[in-house]
């Protein structure tokens, strides 16, 4: 299958998913007595209606894309890195630690750079734990990841209420705000942080290159497709799994770091803002294709930012936006399941599509 065909086929899947999403959310809106068209209009206008709104979308797009990039590595080797949420959190914790050390520093940009690197290391280390649990302990990465997410949340709560609390205060509002010198620079008039944007672009390109043109990418894919065969060929599944986890954790950690220095300017319990979990959907919905990731992430980011208009403009009860997001997840998963079944059937009939390994369709675009 050539590249163009592949892209059109998968954009078709994306369109079908989007249509399903619209169908479900319209249903929810109609049941709630809200005009669906007006709701979509407000979501659209609330996310792309002005430059400032768009840059808020970008703010949400940045961590989402970073996490999704990381997840491509783990999905490629057949791992479900649910622990990505916790990896974002620990990245944020490491980053905060460096920023706290540099409070009096004369060279804030060095400190910020250091904090981003620390975030990368933190996320990678946290992922390493899940990786070792999987390869050395035989613990399923989904359970290990979920457990580690709770631990990471606990670590943040402990830090915010304990060693890093504001003087005399015990509140989950978070740590003391960093001085503006330690905020990631942004173009004030359009609220856009160019360094953060650059980091995401680098991440995208790096992911694409690593997965496609390097030995690492090839190994990950070979093991993901057939671990036993890969082992016979002399590849080391365990080592590569840990490596994939390190990449995923590193990207997630950077996302956490940017949340601290670029968005909240402090550490707070909700620092990861569910971007990790959302990124799992982004990666799946884009069919693990790096060039679809930014667009799908953009769609989710628009929805994230735009749905705030529902309570504001239409006086819809705010819990409704939660219901809509739930419908979105269901629609995404439903379509995903349907696609998988179709691929299975097609695979059995013609053998021209993807192989099914571990219940997951493997990519065919860069064979």
């Amino acid at each position, binding site marked *: 299958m050539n590249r163009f065909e592949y892209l059109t086929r998968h954009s078709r899947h994306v*369109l079908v998913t989007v249509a399903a999403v619209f169908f479900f959310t319209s249903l929810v809106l109609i049941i709630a007595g809200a005009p669906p068209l007006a709701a979509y209009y407000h979501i659209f*206008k609330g996310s792309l209606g002005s430059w400032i709104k768009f840059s808020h979308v970008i703010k949400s797009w940045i961590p989402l894309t970073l996490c999704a990039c990381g997840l491509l590595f783990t999905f490629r080797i057949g791992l479900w890195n649910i622990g990505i949420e916790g990896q974002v959190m620990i990245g944020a914790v490491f980053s905060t630690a460096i920023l706290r050390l540099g409070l009096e520093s004369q060279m804030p940009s060095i400190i910020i750079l250091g904090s981003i690197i620390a975030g990368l290391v933190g996320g990678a280390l946290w992922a390493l734990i899940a990786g070792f649990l999987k390869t050395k302990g035989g613990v399923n990465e989904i359970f290990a990841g979920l457990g580690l997410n709770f631990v990471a949340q606990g670590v943040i709560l402990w830090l915010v209420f304990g060693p890093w609390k504001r003087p005399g205060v*015990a509140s989950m509002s978070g740590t003391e705000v960093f001085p503006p010198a330690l905020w990631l620079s942004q173009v004030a008039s359009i609220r856009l942080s160019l360094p953060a944007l650059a980091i995401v672009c680098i991440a995208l390109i790096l992911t694409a290159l690593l997965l496609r043109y390097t030995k690492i990418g090839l190994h990950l894919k070979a093991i993901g497709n057939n671990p036993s065969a890969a082992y016979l060929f002399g590849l080391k599944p365990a080592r590569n799994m840990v490596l994939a986890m390190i990449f995923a954790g590193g990207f997630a950690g950077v996302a956490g770091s940017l949340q601290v220095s670029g968005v909240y300017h402090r550490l707070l319990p909700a620092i990861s803002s569910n971007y990790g979990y959302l990124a799992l959907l982004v990666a799946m919905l884009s069919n693990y294709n790096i060039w679809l990731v930014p667009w799908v992430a953009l769609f989710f980011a628009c929805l994230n930012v735009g749905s705030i208009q529902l309570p504001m403009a239409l006086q819809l009860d705010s819990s409704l936006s939660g219901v809509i997001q739930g419908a979105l997840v269901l629609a995404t998963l439903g379509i995903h399941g349907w696609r998988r079944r179709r691929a299975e059937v097609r695979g059995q009939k013609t053998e021209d599509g993807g192989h099914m390994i571990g219940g997951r369709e493997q990519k065919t675009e860069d064979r």
Partner: protein
Amino acid sequence: MTKKIFCGFVISCLVFAFILATAGLVSAEEKPNVFGLLLVGPYNDHGWSQAHYEGGKYVEKMMPGSKMIYIDKVNPADRQGVTIPQLVDDMVEKGATLIIANSDDMKDGTREAAAMHPDVHFIHISGDDVLTGKAPKNLSNLMGRMEYGKMMAGFAAALTTQNGKIGYLGPLINEETRRLAACAYLGAKYAWENVLKKDPKQLKFQVTWIGFWFNIPGVTADPTQVAQNFFNTGYDVVISGIDTTEAVVVAKQKKQEGKAVWAIPYDYIGACEGADDVCLGVPYFNWGPGYVDFVKAAFSGKWQSKWVWLGPDWKDINNPDTSTIGFTAGPALSATAQKHLASFINDLGSKKINLFKGPLNYQDGSPFVKAGQTASDKKVWYMGQLLEGMEGASSAK
């Protein structure tokens, strides 16, 4: 198939374009004076946020031509990834020239947004940025002197408890929550000593903090469980310091199980609704009058950055047009206690009673106010610990 989808896509684009065009026409009408309200909890929480929402409605009523836009549940647990500056940007685009941020939790975000929008006015409720000098010129602080409301609550609790065990369901720990808990204790102690003529050592006043202004599952302690725990361990009156109504709800359940228990909610005038048999009354905020002053100043160009701490109107603490703080006695408060409470309120208003008069000690025994002195506003505002005689944490461990 592809063609069909493409056509569908084009059609939906056209529909969007049409909607955009018509919407543009509608919004070209005359513009009212818009102010924005950021609520930390649900607008109908029967507590803190609803009191603010009603305050905004009051402004709309008193100032024709003004219009409120609001967004509720503005907290990082309910709205993941949404920041205060982002919401402010949006409200400003919608024409708001004054933004009211109603939570302590929004302190940093409000300051950041105020710096980004020097032409827009900001009120941060319960904050102290003006006092600490961190506030830009377009930011003011507003708070009500709930200290008196809490004294009344403590007073009513002490007159009702049958075993002298009062529980205080606290939110997070900061200066505001410490001083409010302390004032409830001062009111209780006063009633205990001077009305009931009992030994203050027999009064047990336990403060338990949950970690935030309301329940966030998995993050805060569960206020329902904390309230249940109070009642199960012999505390028969629970005073609520949190934004939501768990204390009365649990008290009502326990009452139905046959226990003699009471509760005092907080924040909103209607918080006793539906819990007549357990509610001793509610100290509440009436934000309307304070809001109107600021909104008028902002819209008429006479804005000044100031820190305002509005007291009750002692002539009638329940006057909706003049009193920022009120206390409505609940049906469960006995007639005798109501009589005592009325004269207590009178004496507070006439300054015959001043509960901030020394000697008062902090929890660790160090002096808060020395004998013969009275605590200044600033000293009360920045109370550093709970007071001697109270049980519970003064700060995070």
